[in-house]
């Protein structure tokens, strides 16, 4: 009997836990260091990305290696808009980036959800590498291997550079983060969210009770691409530079790992995973140049020994000690 990947709970930590975390998040800039502002902006970006990704992975049961590409698309769209086309208004730029990414995600998703399991995963990988190669080829537009420098966008007339205003950038990112989490929360608790889980557990039965399985998989894919696009869009002005490596499948490995690390069997997991991953990556890359090696090794270790991730393991322990039941 093959053991299937499973999803168990939308459970949240207690109300107090949420309040404390929110306060904590709001207070980050008060630490006074722009380093932390950058770091946590990036952490929240990864959390958004992982959250959307897990909607597809943990909730619908579809493993995609292509979400690096959607992140990259969001980032590159922003870069091209502000730098190449000198279109600077921040919110519309982000909005357009999300729309573009979602649109392409809809097309690619439509093709990929027709296939199951391994083939789905490989198709997403292939598409992502296709974009990778495309970005190199269209170097007139995309700057090829040099990438594009991202000029600061305009926010309410302010030249909104993440370097000059790291705290403001952090707060804007935080707002997007909270909105994304809220929307995600509503989705997973809706009938649609349950339907996705049913599809993950038993697509045959889901179909047999009237759920249009392929169409819902497609919807889940589209939503996850929107999240990836948003994350990429927020990333571009933060980093100030976009490069083709964003499309390489090794970046997809990062969101995958962040999701796994946090715990794909939970709603909260990917969020925590995104933060933990970003912080850990910062420190690891500071001491070694062998980041892909470490990432790969960690991925292997987590897959073999720790598949439930941080939050998943915590919930498991809590359940075993008879704490309040999940659901």
């Amino acid at each position, binding site marked *: 009997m093959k*053991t299937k990947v499973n999803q168990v709970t939308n459970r949240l930590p207690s109300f107090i836990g949420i309040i404390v975390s929110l306060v904590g998040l709001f207070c980050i800039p008060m630490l006074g260091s722009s380093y932390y502002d950058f770091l946590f902006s990036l952490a929240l970006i990864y959390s958004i990305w992982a959250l959307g990704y897990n909607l597809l992975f943990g909730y619908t049961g579809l493993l995609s290696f292509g979400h690096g590409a959607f992140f990259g698309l969001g980032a590159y769209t922003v870069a091209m808009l502000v730098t190449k086309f000198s279109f600077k208004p921040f919110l519309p730029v982000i909005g357009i980036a999300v729309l573009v990414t979602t649109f392409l995600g809809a097309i690619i998703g439509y093709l990929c959800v027709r296939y*199951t399991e391994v083939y789905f995963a490989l198709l997403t990988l*292939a598409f992502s590498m296709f974009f990778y190669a495309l970005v190199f080829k269209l170097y007139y537009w995309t700057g090829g291997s040099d990438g594009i420098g991202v000029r600061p966008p305009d926010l309410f007339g302010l030249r909104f550079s993440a370097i000059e205003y790291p705290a403001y950038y952090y707060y804007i990112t935080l707002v997007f983060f909270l909105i994304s989490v809220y929307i995600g929360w509503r989705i997973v608790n809706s009938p649609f969210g349950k339907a996705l889980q049913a599809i993950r557990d038993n697509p045959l039965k889901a179909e047999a009770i009237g759920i249009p399985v392929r169409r819902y998989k497609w919807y889940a894919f589209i939503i996850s691409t929107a999240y990836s696009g948003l994350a990429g869009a927020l990333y571009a002005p933060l980093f100030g530079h976009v490069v083709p490596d964003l499309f390489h499948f090794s970046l997809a490995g990062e969101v995958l790992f962040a999701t796994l690390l946090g715990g794909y069997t939970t709603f909260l997991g990917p969020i925590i995973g995104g933060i933990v991953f970003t912080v850990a990556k910062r420190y690891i890359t500071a001491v070694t140049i062998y980041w892909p090696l470490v990432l*790969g090794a960690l*991925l292997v270790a987590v897959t073999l020994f720790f598949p439930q991730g941080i939050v998943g393991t915590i919930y498991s322990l809590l359940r075993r000690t008879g704490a309040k039941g999940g659901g």
Partner: protein
Amino acid sequence: MDGLFYGSILYLVASGLTLIFGVANILNLAHGAFYMLGAYVAAILIKLMINTPYAVIAFPLAAAVVGLTGIAIERGFIKWIYEKDYTYQLLLTFGLSLVLSDVVRITFGTEPIYVTKLYAHAGAIDVLGNPYPVYNLIVIGLAFLIGCLLWAMMSKTRIGKVIRACALDREMSEGIGINTSRVFALAFLIGTALAGISGALVAPQSAAMLGMDADALIQSFIVIVIGGVGSMKGALIGALIIGLIRAFGIALFPEIELAISYLVMAIVLLVRPQGLFGREYRAA
């Protein structure tokens, strides 16, 4: 003609991938990394022995090194997830591919290694009025030879039958006393060795360089999709098709060469999802 060369290389690496998938039901995402490893090992060995006729030992040696690495990885990591959901195998092999390709980067550096001397040394002969590198011909011939050996092994020998039995039905095979675990290890050995030798063979023609793993993985996947998973015949035909496309593409429209491979794959997926010779129907 170049198409045949590309096709031969592709056939070797893709057949390794399809063998592993067909037998052990594992899609080895690290397959490209094995290919790259083979290229680097061969390149280093050739460089060491460049002025001696023994340089050709580099190829089988590279294949052996890769094959042994493959089996080590299989025994050490892969065997733990055979019974688990396909997600685990993809995650695991994905992680391993990152590790392996970075190990290659660490060991051999970031600069490509060129061993074109050997390539040039083989010279060129006239084919249909145009000079054509002898090296390429040798590779084509070698691929053909290996293909025949594989076919012979699969259909004529006892071990081949055992492998095919496992590929068709693992439970049944275990029921009749076959040690499937060992068969899987063997499949890995052969499969990765094939990847290794194809990488080794391509090194003198182009180079051993970083990033060739991703390329090989995608191309192999496209070949398998077209040819049908688990089918050696399919790998051959698919590889030839892609090889020819690549050759024509590079000659005529360098820009769209990439797109055409994907296009063909997309068409095959739409029209005949199980590939030309595949047996399973894999649409959702």
